[in-house]
């Protein structure tokens, strides 16, 4: 086992690495010796029952929470030993879409999406151009002057995605992006995630409660001509580079591809995916 401060050997291949990470709150253990890795360009979908620590994993990746034990490497940097100031720089390479969008409710859509660029003091016309581009990606150009309270749940998630991708981050973290949405809106969001995956090949960790979202992502790709997702033919799912990770009782009980998931004999996993 490596020492806590040992650098990551394959940082150019791995976007995120968890090594024996444990964390608990108020005497309640949430994660226990969790280890996994997200390779560059890979999309990993995290499943687990409510309270299994899925969202905690995303917050740990960004250094928003500190683990009790273990190491977390993000783009080769050990976030567990970095100061908050150092983390601010690293966070500029990671985008996150929060569960309830977490849009700044006193700012309009433009300022929400442009927040990071405005903090970097980029020229106004450059900011406007990139905001327009990001909003066009999520097909919400017309909402630029609206406040978050004027948007529907699905639109808020899409603005959240636009805010996360505006700096073209190397890693994207999605916290239940389809949670609480109707099936049609959920499909729109899944399609956007797929579009981002297939066009930019961004490494992504996606937390979800909805199995069908995961399977759709693993079995479909985005068709830029038809501007729609389509099922992968010939069963060649490897090119979408999408894997699954299942958490149970604070631990990882499955980490692998859709095909491997289908062959697992573990009764809990079988029941979970049935």
């Amino acid at each position, binding site marked *: 086992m490596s020492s806590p401060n040992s650098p990551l050997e394959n940082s150019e291949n791995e976007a995120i690495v968890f090594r024996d990470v444990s964390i608990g709150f108020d005497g309640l253990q949430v994660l226990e010796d969790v280890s996994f890795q997200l390779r560059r360009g890979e999309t990993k979908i995290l499943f687990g029952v409510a309270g299994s620590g899925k969202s905690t994993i995303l917050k740990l990746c960004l250094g928003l929470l500190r683990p009790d034990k273990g190491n977390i490497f993000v783009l080769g940097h050990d976030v567990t030993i970095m100061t*908050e100031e150092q983390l*601010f*720089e690293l*966070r500029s390479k990671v985008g*996150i879409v929060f569960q*309830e969008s*977490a849009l700044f*409710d006193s700012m309009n859509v433009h300022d929400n999406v442009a927040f*990071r660029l405005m*903090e970097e003091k980029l020229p106004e016309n450059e900011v406007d151009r990139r905001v327009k581009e990001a909003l066009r990606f999520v097909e919400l150009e017309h909402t630029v002057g609206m406040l978050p309270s004027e948007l529907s749940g699905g639109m808020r998630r899409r603005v959240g995605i636009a805010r996360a991708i505006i700096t073209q981050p190397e890693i994207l973290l999605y916290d239940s992006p389809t949670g609480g949405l109707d099936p049609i809106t959920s499909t729109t969001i899944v399609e956007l995630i797929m579009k981002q995956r297939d066009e930019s090949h961004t490494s992504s960790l996606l937390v979800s409660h909805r199995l069908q979202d995961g399977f759709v992502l693993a079995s479909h790709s985005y068709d830029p001509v038809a501007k729609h997702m389509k099922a992968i033919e010939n069963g060649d799912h490897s090119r979408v580079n999408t894997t699954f990770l299942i958490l149970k009782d604070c631990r990882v009980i499955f980490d692998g591809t859709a095909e491997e998931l289908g062959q697992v004999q573990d009764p809990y996993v079988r029941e979970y995916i049935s």
Partner: protein
Amino acid sequence: MELISPADFVKRNVLAVQDYYAVATRSISNIFRRPRYMADMIQQADLIGVGSLPIVVLTGTFTGVVLALNTSDTLQRFGSLSLTGQLVSLSMVKELGPVLTSLMVAGRNASGMASELGSMKVTEQIDAMRALGTDPYKKLVTPRVAATVFMMFFLTIISDLMGLIGGYIYSVAMLRLDTYQYWNKAYQALTYNDILTGLIKPIVFGFIISTIGCYYGMSTKGGTQGVGRSTTQAVVASSVMILATDVLVSQLLLTVLR
């Protein structure tokens, strides 16, 4: 109701003091670090200072009136009614101006800060800000603390002045005192140390109001109920701290400026 052991109670409170200390020191140290959010500071100064002006003017005026009203009876018995101006000015400038202004600002702004930051905390907006690479202590806390300290200074001066005017109106209208007599006594009673005492206090109180408001906001837990709890606690804690600190600061300044 949840029962906790004495050890846990002490631990929890020691942790709270430690967290408050961290918020307070970061709010000061961030003033000297980049980026500085001048636009946010000006916006907060407008919200806190200009927004509090009506209540500060009213509080100051009525306090001056009631001071003149209550003391005139006693002063008349000793044939010293002419000292009304002196009494109003000393009471307002040294004590009531800073303390009452601070209590009013605490009621209005400590609650506002706690509820605003608390709502941002429970809706993950603070986490989102951190995730987007911005230090919420620099962006949200420091501008509020700087603006409150700065504006409290001027609000207290306005409150003192309004108190003197209130006392003057009552003295002339009801006690039939001479204008010159009132203002002359009011002016002559004040020493340099009295004015200094009256101007140092609002700076200290402004710091207490804003740091307590921000501390409770940033440590909010438990949804909308938590926001309500933080708001109440911020007003109660800042009001009590203002009164307790007033004793300490008064004693300290009395010793130092003697």
